């Protein structure tokens, strides 16, 4: 098992470098960032431009810039922002915003797994029943609604017409509006709507996956054997079938989590949630490349860690994987 884990970690290193190169290329494909950032500014002099270029080390050759960037990265330094809060360090900035993003995405992932797995199982057990048809139809619809549209609808209904939840943000502006005067409860109250929307969006594909995986397993011979030997239906489904049916689900959870983190800008824009996603959109609009690279790398690392955990869990559930 340890050899398997080490192999998985070694395997992620070239992946990480490949992504770094693409991210770096994305920020340099249009040439000098200073040139780009200052095209809108009519007052800038060529000297000022030159000065800025030298200040950020952008006059050096590209490969040199890339190695400097790598060297700094491994010391945990992602550079300073070009535009925000007087050139604040990117790591500090990400530190300020990351938790809010995680909180939302992890809560949604947790709830969607909690709901999706039982629903998928029940739906598979009663294939073609009314319940199954309802579940599958709702899930397919769920994968087709853009998450921001779902968010807008939820805001219109629950925030404006019913007034149950706030429409956006992570906190009330005035402390007097905190429920029972509690800061934490206020955050939870603000979190409810985005979490619900994100949960529904994540839930739909997982339900379909659990259902189809369960159906496939239930058709196998060893399930027939288990039934023939007189085991209760409960034991057949939850003990014998479930363990194998969850294998594809486990592999997808890592990928889903990566996709969810990368999709953070969308949810965070709809609900005006102050996380890294919203920060990323703001930085990209201003072409603030250190922040752009910082957040992309941060999310990539998180995705890779999620994949690693998935791989380990996969190896744990399915012993065949460990010995390739």
């Amino acid at each position: 098992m340890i050899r398997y884990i080490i192999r998985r970690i070694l395997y992620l290193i070239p992946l990480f470098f490949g992504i770094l190169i693409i991210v770096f290329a994305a920020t340099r494909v249009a040439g000098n960032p200073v040139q780009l950032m200052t095209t809108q500014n009519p007052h800038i002099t060529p000297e000022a431009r030159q000065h800025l270029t030298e200040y950020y080390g952008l006059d050096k050759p590209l490969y040199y810039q890339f190695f400097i960037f790598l060297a700094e990265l491994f010391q945990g330094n992602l550079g300073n922002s070009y535009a925000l809060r007087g050139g604040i360090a990117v790591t500090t900035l990400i530190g300020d915003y990351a938790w809010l993003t995680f909180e939302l995405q992890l809560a949604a992932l947790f709830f969607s797994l909690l709901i999706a797995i039982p629903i998928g199982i029940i739906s598979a057990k009663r294939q073609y029943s009314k319940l199954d048809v309802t579940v599958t139809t709702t899930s397919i619809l769920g994968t087709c609604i853009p998450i921001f549209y779902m968010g807008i609808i939820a805001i219109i209904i629950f925030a404006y017409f019913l007034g149950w939840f706030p429409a956006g943000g992570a906190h009330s502006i005035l402390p007097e509006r905190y429920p029972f005067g509690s800061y934490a409860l206020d955050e939870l109250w603000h979190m409810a709507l985005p979490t619900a929307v994100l949960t529904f969006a994540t839930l739909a594909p997982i339900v379909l996956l659990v259902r189809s995986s369960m159906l496939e397993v239930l058709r196998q011979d060893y399930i027939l054997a288990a039934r023939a030997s007189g085991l209760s239906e409960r034991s057949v489904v939850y003990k014998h079938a479930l363990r194998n049916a969850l294998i594809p689900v486990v592999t997808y959870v890592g990928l889903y989590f990566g996709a969810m983190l990368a999709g953070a800008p969308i949810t965070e824009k709809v609900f005006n949630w102050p996380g890294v996603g919203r920060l990323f959109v703001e930085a990209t609009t201003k072409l603030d490349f250190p922040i752009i690279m910082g957040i992309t790398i941060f999310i990539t690392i998180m995705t890779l860690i999620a994949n690693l955990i998935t791989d380990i869990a996969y190896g744990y559930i399915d012993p065949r994987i460990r010995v390739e």
Partner: protein
Amino acid sequence: MKRKSSTEPKLQVQNRKIRSKGVSQWNIAWRRFKKNRAALAGALIIGFVIFLAAFDALIAPFPPNATPGFYVGEARVPPSLKYLFGTDRLGHDVFSQVVYGARSALYVGFGAAAIAMSLAVLVGLISGYYGGLVDNILMRTTEIFLVIPFLLILLVFLKVITAIVPSGVGGLSIVMIMIGVFSWAPNARIIRGEVLRVKESEFIEASKALGASKRRIIFKHVFPNVLHIIIVLTTLMIATAILVEAAVSFLGFGDTAAITWGQQLQLANEAVKEAWWEGVFPGLFITLLVLGFSLLGNGLRDALDPRLRE
């Protein structure tokens, strides 16, 4: 599998004339497809949107980007007979704008899917058939594109490229190309897997024994046998591309000169409290079209998969 069954009727045709036509792969698929009501509904939805896009100028009561409500104090009015879906802040007729948005959605959907699938088919076929070092290099590249935070990179590329391209130069095409270039990876992996499966078949071995070249085997024998997967993946890819374009426009990184549903949602998002109709209708059309392609894709998968044949 397919070859075996198709040789027998052919021999019969040569010996004695049979009036009824032989049943081809596609006949069987069509017969199965016809029975699938969900898939037919999907095709109907797509047909409806294509109709909207084709005759948009006839269907929409106002010209593109017209602001009929602006000077007459009818900006941001709720749906009525005059403005079926209401008007927005600048007095645009939401219904007209939704109709004009159909063309953009289809353009990006089909275009991005064409690019993504061409890349995916190329990578999948080569990687799956040649194996070895080529496969290794291509698959590692594919994995990079699988793990990369897709939306983030897409936004950066769009922002940077629109900054250097003079404004008004094919903005929507840039969006389309970028979506295509960044979404081939998952499809390439599936196609590769399918190629690996087909490669082991006896008929491939037979043509190898007959001395067929690698290129001939790939394009004449392997490709037709993975075509059904490619068709299904293309349909689903169109749905994904439409969703991604909507998301990108919603975040404000799309082509501001084009009329797209995502863009309308972005504007609506600023005023959901005052004018729900601004966002509800364009979003409904995105959902509808994506649903259409998903249903069609799932239906095609059931109809075309030879393993599901009774």
